[in-house]
């Protein structure tokens, strides 16, 4: 079994082109909505692996996978944000994030871009009805006609996942 793994190299063009005013984001799509997260949180992006179920886990925790010897939990981002659960599909991808020492995989439908955005282009979040979303949204970015929701990954994963 081979797993397509794209490790983001520090010398990739997207990074070297950055100027201090620019912030870089990984842009991805899940359940038809576009999101982005700070590239500095992202360790790697890898193909989908079926996770092993975890007992007594919240619904948004799909299970755990083996990442080169480390056991990491897989979180269904759509479900975590209060949307419905993502469909299980071999074409889903896992964004491996690191918050401090803690490594977590986010399962999303597809990763579309790596984007450099001037910090001034990040718009504040308007009032939202969903508390779930408001707690984890840090801003909005409009890019080529698409609305990208900027997520605070630490707020999503910072608390203990295990109930």
């Amino acid at each position, binding site marked *: *079994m081979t797993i397509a793994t794209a490790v983001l190299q520090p010398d990739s063009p997207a990074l070297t082109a950055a100027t201090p005013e620019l912030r870089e984001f990984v842009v991805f799509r899940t359940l038809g909505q576009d999101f982005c997260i700070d590239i500095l949180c992202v360790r790697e992006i890898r193909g989908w*692996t*079926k*996770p*092993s*179920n*975890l*007992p*007594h*886990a919240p619904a948004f*925790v799909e*299970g*755990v*996978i*083996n990442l080169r*010897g*480390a*056991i*990491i*939990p897989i979180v269904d981002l759509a479900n975590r944000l209060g949307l419905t659960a993502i469909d299980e599909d071999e074409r889903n991808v896992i964004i491996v994030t690191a918050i401090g*020492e*803690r*490594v*977590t995989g986010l399962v999303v439908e597809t990763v579309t871009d790596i984007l450099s955005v001037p910090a001034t282009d990040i718009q504040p979040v308007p009032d939202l009805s969903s508390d779930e979303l408001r707690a984890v949204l840090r801003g909005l970015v409009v890019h080529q006609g698409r609305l990208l929701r900027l997520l605070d990954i630490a707020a999503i994963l910072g608390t*203990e*996942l*295990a109930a």
Partner: protein
Amino acid sequence: MAPPTDLRAIFFEEAEELLIALDAGLRRIESGDAGGETVNAVFRAVHSIKGGAAAFGFANLVGFAHSFESLLDDIRSGERVVDAPLVAALLDASYHLADMVNAERSETPLDPAVMQHAHEVLVATRDPASQRISIEVPFAAVPMDFVPLPLAGRIFDIDFAPHADAFAAGHEPSLVLRDLCALGKAQVVLDASALTADFDPAQCRLRWQIRLETDRDEADLRAVFDFIAGHCDLAIRDAVQHPSGDVSAPAAPPPLPASPVRAETPAPRSDVRPETRPEPRPETRPEAQAPRATIRVDVDRVDRLVNVAGELVIHHAMLAEAILRSGKRAETDVDRSLDQLKQLSRQIQDSVMAIRAQPVKPLFDRMHRILREAASVAGKQARLVIEGETTEVDRTIIERLADPLTHMIRNSVDHGIEKPAARRAAGKPETGVVTIQAAHRSGRVVITLSDDGGGIDRDRVRQVAINRGLIAPTADLSPSEVDALLFLPGFSTAAEVSALSGRGVGMDVLRSEITALGGRISIASQPGKGTALTISLPLTLAVMDGMVVEAAGQVLILPVSSIVETLRPDGSAGHRLGLADPVVELRGICLPVIDVGAALGFRDMPVDLAGRICVVVERDDKNTVALLVDAIHDQRQVVIKSLEDNYGHIPGIAAATVLGDGSVALILDPVELLPSRSLRKPAVPARTPIAAE
């Protein structure tokens, strides 16, 4: 050349070993063995630390070690009789020395007032006569000899030359020398210049020059030589009193303890000053035991090796599965090689783990100090008894045991041992005994900490639990259930919050620390007799033997160490009590059945027993239960991977591992898997005796 930082690191490593030797030696003195070699070992340890400290310019350390050394020298020379207050002072001094070494290591200076106080106490412990020795003298890099104590009496120079036929006549010069040394302070010099390469060991060719300082007169000296007088040349004369420095040696035992061939001393004029003399360089003296051949290895390197060995086990499993899938397993050559590879990788694994395994002794020895300090703060008397200190455990576990053990010791002193008056009233010795015991038991390490104190005051525990709303006032609890209340978060019965424990973060924190190590903790108590805390830990946090089972479509691992047997119940063996409590009958005994799939929430309804497999597992307290699984796939060594690093603790799950196909399987914890209602079962008798014999 090694950079100075390396030398520094070596000094601190050695200092740590020396401090352990120092502590061990003081322990022996405390237990009544104040013999020459024990005192010497202690002296050597302090002296070596002083020497090393001087090389690095740790002036405070040198000054303190020097005073310590002087006190030890008084003991060695017999000036001081070893009694309890002196031993206590020595122990305090050794703790302070350890603190000073640690302070230098971490480069965080100690409070000068504390240092000065410790130093003053130490100096005051020496008798007034010896206090003339100035401890302010800065220690020179060249170790200095000891300033002689003022002595009264005469000094004799004795030439003692047994005749060649002395041995044949049945004389033993060493006995004569011993008797002579008993008269006063003697400095004995061997003259072996008459020895030739082809000497006859039956003939005595040795002569001795003795400088004896004694309050006896010459006639007493001559009396010593009465028996050998016909077979030796003897000259005794008064020596000129030297101002100081020369006759520094304290009394010495015989220089030549009866050895079969005495004349082995090869050097033409070798110095056979006996071992008890103060040597400026202890390293040059032959040690009592030959040192074992060891190497120092950076722990990181061993850890790396452990990880790689773990990966080897995983990849062996992957290879085996790949071959199985390709259908080549049937070929015996492949099968045999694979089997050998399995053996080898297991051996590598075991050897690597053996490298990392360490006896619990250093950890336990540290508890002496904890106990002493805790007892003195609490105004109680207690001593620590250690058993099974050679038990070996993986060092990763030992490291993480220090805090829980410290906590347990303090708890024992604070809550267990009574005040001396109360103990007297209860007819117990005033000094309480805390026993710490380690043993291997069925693939786990069991550490028991027991005290002979008052036991748990169950009425009070109950009352506190009710007051805090932890239990209902009407709750009917068995004694062991009351004891278990102590582990509830936020429970503390200490009426007066002491400086040691009783801050209300006690036992529940202890329990979570032990649980994080894959261990379990239980408590047993007898009113008036004492309390025993038992922790059971895995031998290693790296690998284990696991049985690969399947339940509700999930592959899970059961630790083989907990499995008693497996059985396939036929229709008649399974019964149901009420709706949901199945039991299985095994040789006339009914065992509760836990459906693993349902207990973990993978399956809603418990399934029928028929067609499934029961794995009978044993809890630590000898309770057995049957775990219901759908299938057993394999038995293999699995590498333990932490779930808690990236996720958290899951009840019923000990850890995770990686299977041959790269997927993750969870390792079950059979004990935690039990439904909570099993706590309502009749209390099991405590396994560990509370009182020592």
